[in-house]
């Protein structure tokens, strides 16, 4: 992303934006049906579990499974309706759910986020956030390495100062923090 600046206008370009005409990976209707099927399965599992917990009445009123059992039935019903409605093709034109280039861009954030969550477990939140910000800015934002490193070091430090020092919130920590005895 390059940035230009004039007196009255602010312009931010986005050269790596997904092109408008990119083949669709899948369509909204298909995703709609798949999601409804997944939720239906979930509803049935939940209904079974609540039936096992007890969905009827005992001496003290409704059992623990009573309320959620009927909710799972409602959820299942709405999902079946949704599947039928989508199967008949009602509910407007079938739009592409995501195009190939859009999916590529979404993965560009999702995969680093996933990696960040994994790294947080081993390295602690602050080191992982340094790696995420630096890596993302440098690799995906194509921002100069020194700028990326400087920003991410500052960011990680500010986060540490805010949460750990000022607000006493304890975040996952790793070997680096242990080195400094925190």
């Amino acid at each position, binding site marked *: *992303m390059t940035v230009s600046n004039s007196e009255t206008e602010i312009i931010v370009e986005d050269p790596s934006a997904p092109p408008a005409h990119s083949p669709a990976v899948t369509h909204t209707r298909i995703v709609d049906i798949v*999601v409804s099927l997944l939720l239906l399965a979930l509803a049935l599992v939940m209904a079974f579990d609540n039936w096992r917990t007890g969905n009827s009445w005992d001496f003290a009123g409704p059992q623990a499974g009573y309320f959620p059992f009927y909710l*799972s039935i409602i959820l299942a019903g709405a999902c079946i*309706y949704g599947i039928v409605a989508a199967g008949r093709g009602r509910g407007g034109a079938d739009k592409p759910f995501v195009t190939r280039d859009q999916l590529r861009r979404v993965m560009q954030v999702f995969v680093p*986020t996933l990696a*960040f969550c994994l790294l947080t477990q081993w390295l602690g939140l602050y080191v992982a956030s340094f790696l995420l910000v630096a890596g993302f800015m440098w690799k995906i934002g194509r921002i100069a390495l020194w700028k990326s490193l400087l920003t991410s070091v500052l960011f990680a430090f500010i986060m540490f100062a805010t949460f750990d020092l000022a607000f006493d919130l304890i*975040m*996952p920590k790793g070997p680096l923090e242990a080195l400094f005895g925190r």
Partner: protein
Amino acid sequence: MEALGLLLHGFGVLLTWKTMTLMMVGLILGIFVGVLPGLGGPNGVAILLPLTFTMDPTSAIVMLSCIYWGALFGGAITSILFNIPGEAWSVATTFDGYPMAQQGKAAEALTAAFTSSFIGSFAAVVLITFLAPGIASFALRFGPPEFFAVYLLTFCSFVGLGREAKHKTVISMSFGLLLAGVGLDTVSGQLRMTFGWSELYRGVNFLVAVIGLFGISEILLTMEERLALRGHSARISLRVVWQVWKSLPRYWVTLLRSAAIGCWLGITPGGAIAASFMGYNLAKRFAKDKESFGKGRIEGVFAPETAAHASGTAALLPMLALGIPGSGTAAILLGGLMVWGLNPGPLLFVEHKSFVWGLIASMYLGNVVGLVIVLTTVPFFAAILRVPFSAVAPMIVVSCAVGAYAIHNAMFDIWLMLVFGVVGYVFKKIGIPLAPFTLALVLGNRAEDAFRLSMIGAGGDLGVFWSNGLVGSITTLAIVLSFWPLISGGVDRITRVFSRA
């Protein structure tokens, strides 16, 4: 005029250096959040909520509500200067705001937007000041059946009045209610729907879900779109402010109408978006020269902004008085109240007087201070959009993770947040609304408890929901509302038949 005395007491609670500083910090963070792409009111409040965990409840809610006001103000900046509505309810602001900016009248448009936001919020806060205590003391007489009926009314009005496909609203809501039930059952002490998974014993935390649904999914959605921007910068001078304010009395009908629409729609759930469009359309309908709308008319900025902010603020009324949030952000604030150990609902007005009135006083003060801040700092905030998204996105992800982790100090919650991020992304793309889910998740346990307590009291007789005039009419209204589209369709058909005869 008991309310006025209590309000003065509220100001007394507020006027300390610490709360005033927190208020400023909250407002600036809020404007920041409102201007940044991929963040808005609910996400901002949800992500920044953990910052407040170690504060006392009054400071915490003052800071959070100021983040909310700031985000509302910030949304107008991007709508007018960049034609990018930060929130769905700022869409109507772009109709006339952006053309004004193109004509070089950005400063006028921004001043108009900020001023009318202030007027809208102010009207709603006055309403809250005088109406909320009355409603709360009336609701003190409510028993479990009445409360369940009110919850039912909230849920049903989402189904009946929402714009999305009905079955999708039902899916979203029942999914949320179901997840709210996961974990330890508070009445019987039994575990349910945990499948032996010890991380689920605590249940699905509402805030973790919200951070994922609104924060992470919004980043995914923003990345998918073109991030190129082209807009105007603006500097507001005192002369412009004076000119716009001088013209205000001419538009008093528009302002009053929009404020009234906003207050009404804000109290009913999910109203801010509808309010802004309705405010705009009515201003257009009553105008003498309808053609000039959409071409940069200042009234076209006044009308939607006043309505949107009146409704955004009025959404806090049912939350404070009944414990039922009128909007997504109100639901998150409600979640916050529970974290700080306060039980939202009518008892709040009795048990935590200085908290409630401190909050109401902070609404007045926050809006005044917010207005001054946005008027003076617009150039700075417009420049934030120059910061590349590839620097902002990972920082938002980290803030989300911090927020999710801080709630229970559990790594599991970070993973749960990620899952909800994907769920939110998919739901938004296939048109399953997220607001009913949010509301159901935060109200689920309370609704269930109310239902079971009234069932226990009545010995399992569903007739308890019609046992007296009050509960009966609320329940009936709820059922009517959930079938509203069918009923109004039927009425239309009947009137058409009669008019033909």
